[in-house]
């Protein structure tokens, strides 16, 4: 096996996993704490990418795009929570699925109206566009940048939830809403905050992938399904579970795509193998989730309080 290739694939898998984690973390918190299924979570992923792309193209600075997009997504997240989402915390999952499905339609069309159907391509600063040599292996600098940023965000999130007062309140609200209210925690504010933070995390994910895949309409709609798979595997409400599952899914997807065709090629004709390989990688992910649901219905790392 080619080491250079393998290390590159590993890096790509981890990078995909970390992006998935950024989406799954918010999804999992919103689900775990408010019991709310948010199919529209991917909208913030898309909006992050679009706002960053717009600013980056206008100013020529990707970093400026990043800095402007974050508060913008935060505000949009708060607005969505206030206008629509908060009326659905107590409704059943079916209503939540449908209302967020409606939100996705609205958001995708609004983006098409504002930015056109074409999608945007995001320029990268030169220092991020090159290659980095690490111990004889060249790796794309931007991939390493994504991994670093996402890892920092993940670590910060974990610290906030585990160590700070706000995190304590979030955890309290998650385990027992009435108790939290009795302790004087304003759960409505906590809910809004959690939703907005989830939106920002998704936005960061979208910003990070924009220079690779561009910003396009509906870019969040498929990855949000993958993020749902991640939180089911990891255990709903568990940040740690989401992290492990996201990296796992990222690796299965990337390594599966890279190596399944040659493994299949041992049995089938090359053209069958190369077309069936990517499909099989996707199937593997769903198979994993099914097995988890059958044998550990509450996920691999269910949070202690559920």
């Amino acid at each position, binding site marked *: 096996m080619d080491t250079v290739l393998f290390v590159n694939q590993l890096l790509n898998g981890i990078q995909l996993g970390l992006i998935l984690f950024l989406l799954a973390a918010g999804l999992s918190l919103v689900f775990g704490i408010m019991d709310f299924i948010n199919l529209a979570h991917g909208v913030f992923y898309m909006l992050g990418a679009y706002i960053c792309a717009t600013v980056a193209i206008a100013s020529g600075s990707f970093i400026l795009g990043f800095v402007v997009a974050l508060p913008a997504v935060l505000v949009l997240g708060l607005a969505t929570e206030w206008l629509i989402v908060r009326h659905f915390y107590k409704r059943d*999952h*079916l209503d939540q699925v449908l209302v967020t499905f*409606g939100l996705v339609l609205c958001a995708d069309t609004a983006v098409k109206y504002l930015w056109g159907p074409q999608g945007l391509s995001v320029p990268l600063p030169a220092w991020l566009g090159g290659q980095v040599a690490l111990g004889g292996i060249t790796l794309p600098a931007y991939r390493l940048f994504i991994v670093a940023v996402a890892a920092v965000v993940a670590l910060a999130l974990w610290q906030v939830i585990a160590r700070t007062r706000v995190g304590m309140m979030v955890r309290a609200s998650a385990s027992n809403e009435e108790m939290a209210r009795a302790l004087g925690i304003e759960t409505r504010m906590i809910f809004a905050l959690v939703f907005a933070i989830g939106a920002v995390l998704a936005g960061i994910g979208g910003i990070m992938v924009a220079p690779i895949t561009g910003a396009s309409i509906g870019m969040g709609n498929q990855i949000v399904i993958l993020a749902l798979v991640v939180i089911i595997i990891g255990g709903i409400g568990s940040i740690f579970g989401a992290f492990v599952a996201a990296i796992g899914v990222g690796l299965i997807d990337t390594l599966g795509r890279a190596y399944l065709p040659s493994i299949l090629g041992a049995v089938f004709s090359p053209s069958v193998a190369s077309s069936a390989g990517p*499909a099989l990688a996707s199937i593997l992910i*769903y198979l994993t*989730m099914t097995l988890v649901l059958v044998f550990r219905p509450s996920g691999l790392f269910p949070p202690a309080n559920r």
Partner: protein
Amino acid sequence: MTRSIPAEDGAKLTSAPARPRPATDCDLVAAFVILAALAVAPFALAAIGHDFWTDVILRAMILGIAAVSLNFIIGLGGLVSLGHAVFLGIGGYSVGILADLGIDNGPAQLGAALLFSAAFAWLTGMIALRTRGVHFIMITLAFAQMVYFTMMGLRQFGGDDGLTINYSTTFGPLDLGDKDVLYYVVLAVLGAAMLGFARVRRSDFGLLLKAAKGNERRVSAVGFNAYRYRLAAYVAAGTLCGLAGFLDANFTGFVTPSAMSWISSGELIFIVIVGGIASVSGPIAGALVFLLIEEWMGGLTVYWHFWFGLFLIAIILFARNGLVGLLNQRRPR
């Protein structure tokens, strides 16, 4: 202590503030009116020179059959499947693959469509029905995605492009490639499915499904194994949806994996909810509204999805029992 008893998981999906049940009378009247209107629609539309709309209505009726089938599990059983459209694909590919192999024999194609749908429903239902609530949503999605990706990867059956069916299904002299024949075959299947739903809803079996949806502990406390009945309902629903897929393949002349995507399944749920969950006339009403809005709004603006999304949100916010529910609210009960 009671908190730790299992089966609370699905509680939110099922025992949330009860949706008031649609009054039967209005619902059944609406069902008959719609079916009668559908029966004369081709003549009426041809008379005023709008026969293209027959095509739209035929499509709505096929979607309506799929939605009736989903209503068995979602409306009576309270089980939200985000993978129901997979049966449309299984029914469609049964026709497509057999036709591709040169078999255009009607009974063989129909038999394959029903058999494969039923078998898939049975195998996946056995696993999926052990879960509840959001886990059921996700596991049905997972099974559908697996089939979806399998068909995407199978080059010899068209892969992502789908499979074109060049020869229509024939039952002796009955050729489903003839749009007029197909129209009335579909109408008959739809009518039978709606009648079946109306009967089952009021039957022993329907009562058990509704009870299990409302309170599963109660059902096992009196001595029923809800799982068995749900599996039966799931297999019946899958088979009926497979039949819809069979008809759809004959209607469109091709099948694609995208018919099985989660978006298609989401649309089926949407049709059931907009029409009126657990009602007889809801699925076809929802399907007609869905397609007519699509045609009408689509003609007005390319940004019609925005208004469509708003419409959906408004329905969920303000008309929780769908169109049939609105019909009933007008008269005090």
